[in-house]
């Protein structure tokens, strides 16, 4: 059962991911954003399969909820109708295929050469309590730094999108 679910979610994630970057029917950023939400949701499904329940929730709440809404806001704000006519250029597609293909090939070859040899039965449970304990003990320092980082981002966003310059 779990295996079948894996294949379903993996397929969905990849299919939606493909539609984000190279939707054959629409170049509209809104469409891309919508498919990105779906990709993220499929990934949340994979997270659940990996028993990372907390992260699955965060993924849906933060990513699909907050981040993508931000994206959509900006797209609406910018009124990018002209962008819909964007065409892919051959050179750029070839360049993208070459580099992405090369990296993918090397990665798969590496995976075949030295497969990750961990075959014990997985037991790690990404519950909120376990993660919370770790986060506020061993990982307290990065946690605090991230709070500074969020402050920086906040200051930056206010400055960059303030309407009047004075």
């Amino acid at each position, binding site marked *: 059962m779990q295996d079948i679910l894996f294949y379903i979610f993996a397929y969905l994630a990849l299919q939606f991911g493909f539609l984000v970057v190279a939707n054959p029917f629409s170049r509209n950023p809104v469409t891309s954003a919508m498919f990105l939400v779906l990709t993220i949701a499929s990934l949340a499904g994979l997270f659940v399969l990996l028993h990372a329940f907390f992260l699955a929730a965060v993924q849906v709440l933060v990513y699909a909820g907050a981040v993508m809404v931000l994206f959509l806001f900006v797209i609406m704000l910018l009124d990018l109708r002209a962008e819909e006519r964007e065409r892919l250029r051959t050179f750029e597609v070839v360049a993208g295929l070459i580099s992405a293909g090369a990296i993918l090939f*090397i*990665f798969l070859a*590496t*995976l075949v*050469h*030295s*497969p*990750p040899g961990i075959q014990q039965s997985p*037991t*790690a*449970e990404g519950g909120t309590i*376990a993660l919370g*304990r*770790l986060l506020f*003990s*061993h*990982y*307290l*320092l*990065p946690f605090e*730094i*991230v709070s*500074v*980082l969020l*402050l*920086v*981002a906040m*200051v*930056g966003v206010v*400055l*960059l999108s*303030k309407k*009047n*310059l*004075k």
Partner: protein
Amino acid sequence: MNIALLSHEWLVLLLGLGLLLADLWLPPAARRKLGYVAALGVAAILLYSILFVRLPAGGVEYAFGRMYILDSLALFFKRFFLLAALAVLLMSVEFAAEIQSGLTEYYALTLFALAGMLFACSANDFTLLFVSLELITISFYILTSFQRARTLSLEAGVKYLIIGALSTSFTVFGIALVYGTSGKLNFQDLAAVAPQLIGNKLFLFGLLWVMVGLGFKIAAFPFQIWAPDVYQGAPSPTTAFLAIGSKAAGFALVLRVLFTAVPAITAQWSHLLIVISAVTILYGNLCALPQRNVKRLLGYSSIAHAGYMLLGVAALSAAGQSAILYYLSGYLFTVLAAFTVICLVMRHAEGEDISRLAGLNQRSPLLAAAMALAMVSLAGVPPMAGFFGKFLLFKAALAQGATQHGYYWLVGIAILGVVISLYYYFGVIRAIYWPGNAPDPSPIPVSRPILLSIYACVAGMFFLGLYPNPVVTLTSKAASALQAETAAIHATATLPKAPRAAWTRSLLGPASAAPSRP
């Protein structure tokens, strides 16, 4: 756990927050002076660091379960960053007129970037590495695009953002692979298992991608492509901080990862490092040749200098690592002097063409001399700091030449790069002393703090070039910390878990049982 251990970072963060708060009550006219407050604060922290911060007997102290490390290397870099930020803040005050809004935030963000650097040089764990790198990078995204009225500044910001985010994804993927194959995130724990993973290509893959992210920070080939555009477009004080702080933070992490976490694997990468160093040197110097924009020229030249410093990484020896630190110290004074001059001369000018320097000799002999000396030092002419740094780097590489002849080639190419660089550095000097008619013949007023900063930079350049001994002693001590600590830890016990448990208990109190980590 000793709270005082993180005092540098706390104080800088408090200073930054204080500035943001002070902005609320101060009248707009007084905000410019806040830069002096910030600079004064940084100076006080630097003074505190030099006078009161001492390492314990063992030379090293850990916090947060060995995630944070304070050793002579970290302390060296912390003082280095504080010094750099001090000069950058003074520069920003001069630059204030060019920043339309959010002057206080500009100072505060500089301080937050500084805090990121202070954390980065103490990172002993991939988590802290990632988070502190991001703090630096995101602060710089904003600092780069701060002059919103200038399209170039925004364009530089967007380019830095996209390429930076790209490099972040590579880094995260790399960390994932390293973590997945070794099960470790701590550098010293990794050092214990790394020798068994030499044959594991997935592990190497991950490690290489972590280096991609760091290579982006230091602008090494082939991840240097963003540097010229961003250097050109960013406000001058930001460019200076980028050239010094961000690059040095990158090198601090390169040293930690390569020589603390995976020395056994680094030892096998000498070929790769030699090639990257050589190509970086050639690329930077060749591209700088036809350059007319001074900031862009310095962008290319910073690529070349990253190449020289990679020579010290490639040397795979304590002498090489010490030479990098020495070179960075010289580079600090030199680049700060150069950017201070550029900032003063070109602040009202769009397009920093070299010809704008014409007649500088008449407008301000002091600035002209400082700029000329900085160029001489960058070119590596004795008796300036740049010469001695290069000498130490070349020496370190040559000392390895017996084992592998590639080092001779590398030094040869580096010397070729130095010769090429003479052309463009002397082009700048020539422009300064070129009589011609200056585009704007008015004398340039130099404020007292900037005067002090320039004098300090020039003195630093001469001191490092003429009397290197004190700093060399310092840097070799700092470099020796890299491997000694790992050895000490693995010699005393197999204690990966012990300190973590102890520190957790102390935080959560005796009542709560230590969580059993799966």
